[in-house]
């Protein structure tokens, strides 16, 4: 059976060049870079090289790159570290209702500590109203946190414009750039960002490594206490192999971005067009203008059917994708991103995301376009909502109780 992986926004395969660069740092150059002896010295250079590779991709100086364990850590550090460092200045943070849980739940935790959070709404296309963002700024606002691109829809937010607004009002600006980096240019200087978080495993480096751009002079409280690594900004022995891998993945991204963008976008556009033309009652989730979406992401809802069922049938055909249905989100509710966009509840449960990479091929797209319509039709025939005359039953008292109990 063919195996087609189209869930690259969840994670990517480690690139062969990345793995190759990492290998010497397991058994041969295994030292702790903080050590003074030969074993430690063998490794220090590798970390600084990786720092240069990351800095080049993000267009910042090497001193502004902090290595950490993952995107979630970076978001936690940026937000909690800012909240603590600037708590005497204010207690208001502005973010969006479509952020990754690493941002949303961190903000929710801060609310319990007395911070006030504005969660900006998005429109039906999943985009922000920048006038609303600017109007939300008060003299108590200490941080704006807006993702560079959304993981579910692929929508790209106008980070440069938000950076300009943040600068005008002298408010710190953090962006979760985990999905954007490597797919589209992420220039932190040009965008006037103060903190940007990236994750290795989304760009062909292994899981368990991430980095944050922390603009020089940005006052931030430590998140991880301990040793003096990373100029006292992040304690913990360096994940040397991960850092080396992240560096090479960033270098490859810098080198291949234009080529990969064009290649992946062409495949995604073929898939998008093919699905929308061959299957009736499919809704595109995200901005209709593909220029303001990541080149690799397609999110569609197949009306009347539930996402997990669809994924299981895909899986039987070797196709790996993801869904925003409650069953796959691990909660009782479908995707918060679909909810924020006002997507109909049945369509939210049926939202399906294909996220491609440069490893995908045109043959794979053709295979999906051939396998998909009968699967959708089969599940529709099984659904009591298909060709239904009665109104769809919508609410569940029991679930609300369960939710409250949680």
């Amino acid at each position: 059976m063919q195996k087609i992986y189209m869930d690259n926004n969840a994670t990517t395969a480690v690139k062969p060049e990345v793995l190759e660069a990492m290998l010497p740092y397991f058994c041969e150059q295994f030292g702790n870079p903080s050590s003074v002896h030969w074993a430690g010295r063998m490794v220090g250079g590798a970390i600084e090289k990786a720092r240069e590779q990351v800095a080049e991709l993000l267009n910042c100086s090497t001193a502004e790159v902090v290595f950490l364990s993952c995107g979630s850590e970076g978001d936690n550090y940026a937000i909690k570290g800012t909240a603590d460092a600037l708590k005497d200045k204010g207690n208001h943070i502005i973010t969006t209702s479509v952020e990754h849980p690493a941002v949303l739940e961190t903000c929710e935790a801060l609310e319990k500590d007395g911070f006030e959070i504005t969660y900006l709404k998005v429109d039906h296309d999943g985009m922000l109203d920048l006038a609303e963002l600017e109007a939300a700024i008060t003299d108590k606002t200490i941080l704006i946190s807006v993702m560079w691109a959304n993981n579910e829809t692929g929508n790209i937010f106008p980070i440069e414009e938000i950076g300009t607004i943040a600068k005008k009002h002298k408010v710190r600006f953090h962006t979760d750039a985990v999905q954007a980096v490597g797919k589209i240019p992420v220039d932190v200087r040009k965008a006037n960002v103060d903190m940007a978080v990236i994750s290795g495993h989304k760009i062909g480096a292994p899981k368990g490594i991430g980095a944050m751009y922390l603009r020089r002079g940005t006052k931030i409280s430590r998140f991880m206490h301990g040793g003096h690594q990373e100029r006292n900004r992040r304690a913990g022995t360096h994940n040397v192999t991960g850092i080396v891998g992240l560096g090479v993945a960033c270098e490859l991204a810098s080198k291949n971005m234009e080529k990969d963008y064009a290649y992946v976008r062409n495949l995604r556009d073929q898939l998008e067009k093919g699905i929308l033309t061959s299957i009736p009652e499919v809704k595109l989730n995200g901005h209709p203008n593909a220029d303001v979406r990541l080149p690799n992401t397609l999110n569609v809802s197949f009306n009347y059917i539930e996402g997990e069922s669809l994924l299981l049938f895909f899986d039987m055909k070797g196709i790996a994708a993801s869904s925003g249905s409650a069953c796959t989100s691990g909660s009782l509710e479908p995707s918060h991103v679909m909810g924020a966009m006002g997507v109909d509840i049945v369509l939210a449960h049926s939202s399906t995301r294909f996220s491609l990479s440069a490893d995908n091929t045109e043959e794979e797209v053709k295979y999906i376009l051939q396998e998909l319509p009968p699967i959708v039709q089969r599940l529709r025939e099984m659904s009591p909502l298909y060709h239904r005359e009665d109104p769809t039953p919508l609410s569940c008292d029991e679930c609300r109780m369960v939710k409250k109990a949680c």
Partner: protein
Amino acid sequence: MYTEKVMDHFSNPRNVGEVENANGVGEVGNASCGDIMKISLQVENDIIQDVKFKTFGCGAAIATSSMVTELAIGKTIDEALILTNQAVAEALDGLPPAKMHCSNLAADALHEAIKNYREQSA
């Protein structure tokens, strides 16, 4: 995540559709939870002669619906009424814990259909 039996009933669901000239129809669940199950019955002399389902929901929802139709067919309505969601899950060699609440409603749908049959025949 799912047992072999769940995957079997999910990928080859039994008794999909709607019974023609059904004399009992029941539906449970709702769109917010992402599971809706509809069962239709043909009952004669208090025996379930035919039963079919239509389900909007995840793998567990479809598998439990399929299983409940197999368990119910040929049973008297009194026997069918003591069939529980738990028993349906057990017949499938179990469900993941997260699915026990939201996707395990098939016996409830069957009971609703029987209730509807009794109301109609009363």
